[in-house]
């Protein structure tokens, strides 16, 4: 009887989506993390209005001297860089790179990884062997060194960084999705669809894909964090887009200009912001992971 009551009280699709969106707030860590992510997105959208200065404009004092490595003050809330740029403005504009890199890479990785996993798991045999060999190969390539070589060869730009990151990172998504498909393939509903004469494409994308979607989305979430860290690493090594202000780039410039010994206001904010963002993604991902894997509850 209680089942019947529950069934009649089943929430609508919109309510379900709303509940899923609020899920991280079930725990204090998840709620905190969700707030951080909302903050980053908001800052990224309103960056030009929020930032006090143009992040790429050099500031001079009244005497015409470059405002080099000034500690935080009323005019420059987070101080200035060795090149006389406003740190706070750079920090604010950095959120845009985080979002662009995070989202673009995650989408590319999900597209490549999910499709390779679907194909390999569903068709099996030769196709599986070839695709999984390619995945093994991708696992054999050290990630950061590869990204550095590729960006250096193609020329440093944000787009090339995104390509370099996505080129290898699909590998773990592909493996996980494949193993999911392998077990789904033998399920009744897939067999039924096959007997009913559904085409392979239809079975793959109409019947199997929705079932691997939650796992794929979870991987996308974590990929956002990894992609952002990777971009920061590439920029820190000096292969970032010189025309963009990213947090990794800020740390690179602080390091190469030899300013890390005194200019904590230049090194701490981008590093802390980067860490906070990645932790937030992990924590929110963790909340959703519990949905996918009840053992972790």
């Amino acid at each position, binding site marked *: 009887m209680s089942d019947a009551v529950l069934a009649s009280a089943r929430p609508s699709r919109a309510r379900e989506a709303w509940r899923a969106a609020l899920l991280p707030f079930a725990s204090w*860590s998840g709620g905190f993390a969700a707030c951080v992510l909302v903050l980053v997105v908001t800052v990224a959208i309103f960056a030009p209005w929020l930032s006090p200065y143009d992040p790429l404009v050099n500031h001079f004092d009244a005497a015409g001297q470059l405002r080099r490595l000034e500690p935080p003050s009323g005019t420059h809330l987070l101080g200035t860089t060795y090149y006389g740029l406003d740190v706070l403005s750079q920090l604010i504009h950095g959120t845009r790179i985080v979002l662009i890199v995070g989202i673009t890479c995650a989408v590319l990785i999900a597209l490549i990884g999910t499709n390779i996993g679907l194909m390999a798991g569903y068709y099996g045999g030769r196709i599986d062997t070839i695709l999984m*060999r390619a995945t*093994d*190969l991708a*696992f*054999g*390539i*050290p*990630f*950061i*060194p*590869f990204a*550095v*070589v*590729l960006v*250096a*060869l*193609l020329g440093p730009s944000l787009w090339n960084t995104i390509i370099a990151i996505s080129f290898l990172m699909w590998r773990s998504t592909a493996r996980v999705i494949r193993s999911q498909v392998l077990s789904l393939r033998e399920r009744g509903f897939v067999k039924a669809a096959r007997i009913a004469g559904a085409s392979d494409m239809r079975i793959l994308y109409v019947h199997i894909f929705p079932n691997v979607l939650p796992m794929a989305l979870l991987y996308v979430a974590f990929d956002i*964090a990894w992609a952002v*860290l990777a971009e*920061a*690493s590439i920029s*820190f*090594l*000096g*292969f970032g887009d010189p025309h963009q202000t990213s947090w*990794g780039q800020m*740390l690179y410039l*602080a*390091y190469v200009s030899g300013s*890390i*010994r005194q200019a*904590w206001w230049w*090194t*701490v904010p*981008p*590093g802390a912001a*980067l*860490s906070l963002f*990645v*932790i937030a993604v*992990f*924590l929110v991902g*963790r909340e959703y992971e519990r949905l996918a894997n009840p*053992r*972790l509850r």
Partner: protein
Amino acid sequence: MAFWLFAARRAAHTAVTLVLLLLFMYVLFRLVPGDPTTIMLGTGELPLEAQQRLRELWGLDRPQWQQFVTYAGNLLTGDLGMSFYFRRPVLEIVWPMLLNTLVLMTPVVVISIVLGVTLGTWLGWRRGERIEEIGAILALIPRALPVFWIGIVLLALFAYELRWFPIGGMRQAFFFPETWYQELPFFDIARHLVLPVAAGVLTSMADPLMIQRTALIEVKHEDFMVHARARGLSEGAQRRLARRNAFLPVLTYSAIMVGFAFGGQVLLEVVFNWPGMGRLMVNSVSQRDYPVAQATFFFMAAAVVTLNLLVDLAYGWLDPRIRHE
């Protein structure tokens, strides 16, 4: 017997992967506009005729597949070509750097796994307690920190501010020991190692920790753990049993981890100015010294692939069930 068959199959698989990697690398480095004659000598600085002679001399006029076979053959016999920048054989430059890299990477990987497995076992064993919940979140944090930023912070604090450790490099020129312990061999290298190893361990420890914790939680529910308790095994013996059975996923992961470690290694070496392969690679890429860049890249990839093989073999040895599959 079965184990040797299993080992041989895995080794063959690895060999194929290595050849494919070589091919991939060959194609990758041919993406560069121009060819070695223009890169090495700059365009227009050499008469066309001389360039043509060099191309013939270097075999650049032959078909691509022939070039690849020559290239692969040379690589496998240890002939990695000449550095454009140093004008010396690549192997001579890369080899000492490779050793330096291992000096830094080995402690990072070993300490990360030992600490990660220990803490992961501890957390998993205390599943459900408040301390476990907090510990699990704390463990996530270092994984999220960029290793180069940790490096910068450690340098600013412990090298520049407190002056406890050197600001980088692997040894100090003209190091004069003052006390008895400073006279110990390797003392100078050891004190240069502290900060980079700390930064590396902080970031690499989290993954084995989380994996061990999850695996331990799964193992704890197994029938054999209930049975072990029924047999009157002490708490410590039970935990060791759980750890032993939960260790295999960490082992699998450790191969991947070494792959990541090479990535982290590049960053660590750059931040701490460690004269290893990672820093050499970044420098050679910046200087367009492609033979050196290729060699460093290939060494790293080959190390990852070989370690994967070793881990597979160790897995077969540690879990007697695998060999029979």
